[in-house]
């Protein structure tokens, strides 16, 4: 009954005309961002975040959430039609989606992708409503050692799951923590590495860094390549509503993808990208005819698309209940909430119920809007794909500039953005990832405060992190994550040595 009461309240907030408008704008912009390769939800939210400062926090969060899950919908369109993922979590959709298009089934691929995303997104929102309140209550038991340990786990997970070198991932996280220390010391108020620059007293902002690394860095990487026209698959888009056969083949994949995405989306570091890969692998593994995968299997589209949308809903759970962002987009939301003067954490639901329930209920509305937008507007999105990059990238640069400047009306933020843009470009060359850096930058401050408070509480005894049960659990999982690759690597190298060792002659044991 409580949930019904909360839902009623949430819908009363979400259905206010201004919030419906922002939900629509967010979903529309998110789909556009997802359609356009080269700018993903991270770049879009970074760029549009400062424009929300003049709105109330509820409307801002509704719009930003719309951008996030909208981009998941939009990313599938380019994956299916031009074999280029609109955003990272749609990479897997390219494998079978484009093949379906080549086989004359683009409509079915797009249709099942949209419907699967809708079902998964809706179930994800239901799950968010059910799991979030009890998790928030559980979060009230968290003290400084627990917060420190769970953030440590989150940083370890994102390093563990990063695509490149883990050593480089840890280095980026360490550098992110160093950057987060610039500014005034949160406990003693002394200046740290500000070099007498007033603009650094508040530290290095997350928004210019994110825009630089993911916006400007991406642009510099794209413009260095020659202009090659992307071939859009020319086909008449027929039958966007999946057939009965399509539904029969996809229903299991949609449900499994939803479950996989929902639970993985909650884990710090995992997110929509990992969810979509795992869903694809799962579908291929359990299929009676795995040889169809990679050649146009509809389950290869339905599963991953459902997974990434479910993950985009459940990702809000740790942020809104524990105050822990579990991926980069949530880190941006975390930054946004603190800029609005709100403290993400267990008390957010209690202190700002209109924000929590309003955003959750707006996600129902947003999912319906996306289904309505995506199907009829696909031909329009296809036209947008034809805009040459040479026209797009200057506009993206201007949006980044305005986004950085508007934070503090200070040109030094633009300079920070450009510097990190160059760094982001160089990171790509030298194979370093920006994601651990950004997450560490966002979490660095609370990580440090909770570490120092814990040591003050325990009078310098680090055993506090393992004597408290909740903290001990998170620390154990962190150690397992760090040590597991070492064990498996050692085990594999031992097996290799055993396999290549020549057999002993005349029975002698070597």
């Amino acid at each position, binding site marked *: 009954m409580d949930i019904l009461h909360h839902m009623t309240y949430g819908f009363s907030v979400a259905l206010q005309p201004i919030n419906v408008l922002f939900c629509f704008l967010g979903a529309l912009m998110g789909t556009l961002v997802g359609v356009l390769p080269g700018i993903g939800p991270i770049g879009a939210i970074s760029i549009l975040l400062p424009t929300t400062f003049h709105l109330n926090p509820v409307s801002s969060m509704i719009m930003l959430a719309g951008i996030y899950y909208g981009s998941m919908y939009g990313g599938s369109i380019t994956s299916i039609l031009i074999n280029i993922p609109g955003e990272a979590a749609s990479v897997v959709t390219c494998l079978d989606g484009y093949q379906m298009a080549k086989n004359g089934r683009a409509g079915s691929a797009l249709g099942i992708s949209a419907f699967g995303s809708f079902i998964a997104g809706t179930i994800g929102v239901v799950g968010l409503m059910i799991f979030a309140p009890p998790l928030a209550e559980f979060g009230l038991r968290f003290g400084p050692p627990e917060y420190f340990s769970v953030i440590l786990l989150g940083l370890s997970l994102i390093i563990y799951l990063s695509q490149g070198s883990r050593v480089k991932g840890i280095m980026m996280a360490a550098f992110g923590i160093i950057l987060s220390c610039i500014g005034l010391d949160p406990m003693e108020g002394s200046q740290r590495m500000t070099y007498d620059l007033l603009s650094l007293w508040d530290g290095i902002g997350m928004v210019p860094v994110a825009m630089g690394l993911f916006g400007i860095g991406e642009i*510099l990487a794209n413009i260095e390549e020659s202009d090659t026209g992307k071939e859009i698959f020319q086909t008449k888009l027929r039958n966007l509503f999946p057939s009965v056969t399509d539904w029969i083949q996809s229903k299991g994949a949609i449900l499994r993808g939803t479950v996989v995405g929902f639970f993985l989306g909650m884990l710090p570091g995992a997110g929509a990208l990992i969810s979509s890969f795992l869903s694809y692998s799962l579908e291929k593994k359990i299929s009676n005819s795995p040889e169809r995968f990679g050649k146009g299997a509809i389950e290869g589209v339905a599963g991953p698309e459902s997974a990434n949308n479910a993950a985009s809903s459940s990702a809000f759970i740790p942020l809104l209940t524990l105050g822990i962002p579990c991926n980069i987009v949530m880190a941006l939301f975390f930054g946004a909430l603190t800029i609005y003067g709100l403290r993400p954490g267990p008390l957010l639901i209690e202190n700002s119920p209109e924000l929590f329930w309003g955003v959750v209920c707006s996600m129902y509305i947003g999912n319906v809007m996306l289904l309505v937008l995506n199907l009829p507007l696909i031909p329009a999105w296809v036209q947008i794909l034809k805009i040459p990059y040479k026209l797009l990238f*200057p506009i993206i640069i201007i949006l980044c500039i305005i986004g950085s400047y*508007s934070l503090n009306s200070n040109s030094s933020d633009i300079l920070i953005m450009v510097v990190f843009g160059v760094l982001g470009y160089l990171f790509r060359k030298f194979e370093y990832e920006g994601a651990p850096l950004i997450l560490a930058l966002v979490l660095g401050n609370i990580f440090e405060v909770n570490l120092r408070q814990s040591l003050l509480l325990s009078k310098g005894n680090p055993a506090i992190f393992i004597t408290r049960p909740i903290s001990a659990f998170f620390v154990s999982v962190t150690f397992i994550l760090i040590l597991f690759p070492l064990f498996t690597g050692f085990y594999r190298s031992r097996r290799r040595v055993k396999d290549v060792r020549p057999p002993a002659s005349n029975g002698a044991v070597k």
Partner: protein
Amino acid sequence: MNLPDLWSGIFWLIISIYILAESLRLGFGHFSRPGPGFLLFWSALVLGVLSILICIRAVIVKNGTDIKRLWVGIGWKKVIPVIGSLLLYPVFLPVIGYIVATFCLLLFLFIGIKRSRIWLSGLSSLLVTVLSYLLFNSWLGVELPKGFIGF
């Protein structure tokens, strides 16, 4: 030898040594009362140790990468001017104002980088500048600098 990793490892090692020195200057404190340099120290130590590991790995690897391979085929004529123009933009922005600075930047990007026709570039630059000014300054209330020209 993997030269890109070696160079990047050396770079991060220098950064970590600097940060280590800075953290000790700020004050490490002690475990019962961590100082402002406490977390900085440990983060820099991790960065330094791992950068040494990267350097060692770069030296012992057999089939390494020549650093020049990173830059083969790169459109330097496009990347460096874009970086240069973006670095100059915040310097001139408070002086000449948003509209003039942005128009000039866009004109440079359209003509200089992507070789579009002059009239098309000029029109596009003007359109984007004016629309962005109206959207962000007039509608969303973002205060964009006016400069000495007054707009």
